[in-house]
């Protein structure tokens, strides 16, 4: 019975993936001519001069915020943030505590009203019914009623999202987050990690186009994190856009296409993890020992090896050194304690 369900879920999933990919392909094909026709703008807003917002006239970003400001009394939580998550893109949000990450996420999902600027989900105003219909969200601090079973939590969310996936969708989602054995278990009998995985499953009910996850792995062990990582990659492959707010740099570095670093309510760095990493020199291992040539780049490597060989050295290894996301993060946020 269970095997049958899983198999049927896998077939459903396969069909959905193919359908999504077709739509995604068509949209991507549309983008270039639209851009050439002047239908799109390319907005540069980040401190490091990298593109953050890309607005295309006819194809709205999956999630976009423009000049977003939020003030809580005398505290300015967001100071004109621009950010976009394109279809099928996984964007990570980093920053120290109080940087405005959670506020940004809450504005995007319609839990908090912006003071100025605008936030949109699939072209609809954030918080509107149309925007909420496209969205799956896991809050940083969330709780499900303790007396609900995992299956009932998903069933409740199916009714609220008008999902007609039925038992097959619930079984598939529980399997995705490795909770298929805990289907009938009550929430108050689950560990924190299980509840967090259930939270991710409820966010996926109704196959949303945009996923916003606020610290989705904070309570998970390494195995649980891996489950979530695989799940996120699978969602991206299906064309789902993901905004991931996390303190775990390694996690962000592993799965995200782009990263935005916030500090004191502003985006101070943005780009793909490889764009954000900087050359830190080339390490040359010869019979005379290991030497680091500061400032050298990947392109300098053949010349450096040739020079060493010409000087009669035996070259055993060459390593191009780049900064990690952690280095970039620390550089961007300074010595602020996260």
């Amino acid at each position, binding site marked *: 019975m269970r095997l049958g369900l899983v198999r049927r879920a896998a077939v459903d999933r396969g069909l959905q993936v193919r359908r999504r990919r077709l739509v995604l392909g068509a949209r991507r094909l549309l983008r270039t001519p639209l851009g050439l026709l002047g239908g799109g703008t390319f907005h540069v807003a980040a401190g490091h001069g990298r593109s953050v917002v890309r607005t295309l006239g006819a194809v709205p970003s999956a999630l976009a915020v423009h000049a977003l400001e939020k003030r809580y009394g005398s505290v300015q939580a967001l100071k004109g943030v621009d950010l976009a998550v394109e279809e099928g893109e996984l964007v990570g949000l980093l920053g120290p505590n109080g940087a405005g990450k959670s506020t940004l996420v809450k504005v995007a999902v319609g*839990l908090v*009203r912006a003071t100025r600027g605008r936030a949109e989900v699939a072209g609809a105003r954030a918080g509107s019914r149309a925007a*909420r219909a496209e969205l799956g*969200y896991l809050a940083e601090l*969330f709780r499900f*009623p303790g007396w609900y079973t995992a299956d009932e939590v998903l069933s*409740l969310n199916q*009714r*609220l999202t008008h999902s007609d996936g039925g038992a097959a969708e619930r079984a598939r989602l529980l399997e995705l987050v490795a909770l298929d054995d805990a289907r009938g278990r009550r929430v108050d009998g689950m560990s924190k990690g299980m509840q967090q995985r259930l*939270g991710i499953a409820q966010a996926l009910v109704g196959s949303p186009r945009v996923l916003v996850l606020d610290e989705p792995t904070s309570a998970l062990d390494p195995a649980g994190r891996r489950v979530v990582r695989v799940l996120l990659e699978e969602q991206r492959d299906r064309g789902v856009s993901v905004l991931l707010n996390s303190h775990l740099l390694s996690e962000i570095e592993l799965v995200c296409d782009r990263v935005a670093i916030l500090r004191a309510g502003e985006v101070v760095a943005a780009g793909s993890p490889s764009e954000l990493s900087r050359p830190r020199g080339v390490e040359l291992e010869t019979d005379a020992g290991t030497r680091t040539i500061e400032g050298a780049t990947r392109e300098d490597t053949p010349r450096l090896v040739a020079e060493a060989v010409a000087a009669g050295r035996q070259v055993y290894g060459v390593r191009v050194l780049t900064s990690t996301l952690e280095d970039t993060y620390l550089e961007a946020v300074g010595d602020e304690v996260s």
Partner: protein
Amino acid sequence: MTVVLTIMGYGFREAVRRKVFAVVVLLTAIFLGLFWLATHYVFTRLSTITPPAGVHVDSRVFAGAFLLGLAMFATLFLGVVLAVFLTLGVVSGDAERGLLQPLVVRPVGRATLLLSRFLGAAVVCIVYVLAVYGIAVAIIDLTGHWTPPSALAPGLELAGGVVIVIALSILGSVFLSSTANGIAVFMLFGAGLTAGLLGTIGHALNSPTIEHASRDAAWALPFEALYQDGLRIISSNASGLTGFLLQLGPFGGAYVHGWGIRLWSVGYLLAALALAVFAFQRRDL
């Protein structure tokens, strides 16, 4: 409609799990048991109650109306307790616990969510109030062979009063934490009852100023006015000295009554709900 029923069911299950119903049913059973006992003793000894010579009081009508007034007060109180505990944390309380956010981001809409919670609590409280009131009427009828001139209208007005308290509690929950909201609603309820008693005192002392203050309070807190109107109806066939004495007692007399206050109550209820929805839609969570 499915969504409304889903959210109503969600609130209902929450109340069941938190043992709200268990406590209310236990308290109600104790109250009804004691009420039956009191009614039994009053009516079996009715013949021994002798008013002073020359004073004509219909002791059966007096005892019946007085006891039903007492039952109405208790029903209103228990109904308000149930209403407050079902709704005191609908917004702030659930938001603080992280229960609200996963629901609010769904396509349901904040207005539907809030109004569904209101409807869920209203249905439960209306059924409860009508049931307890009906049992009290039945006890008096079976024990003392007395029924009020209109049995249904006072019950409906009591239920209406409780529904207004639910709306006030939901409105309060948008702005206040659960504890603060519970205290605020119970204090409002207490203020309304005190104002009603003040009107009775004003009537006894023949003080227009006190009666005027009581009347203003009844318009400001119409659940009290509906309760008073219910009391007026159950004693409306008591004439002469019997009626006068009932008016003087704590369970008689209505200084604001009739269709004016009923229509005002409906408008008040709608305004409270509209304000709650408006505030909830603007509230950061």
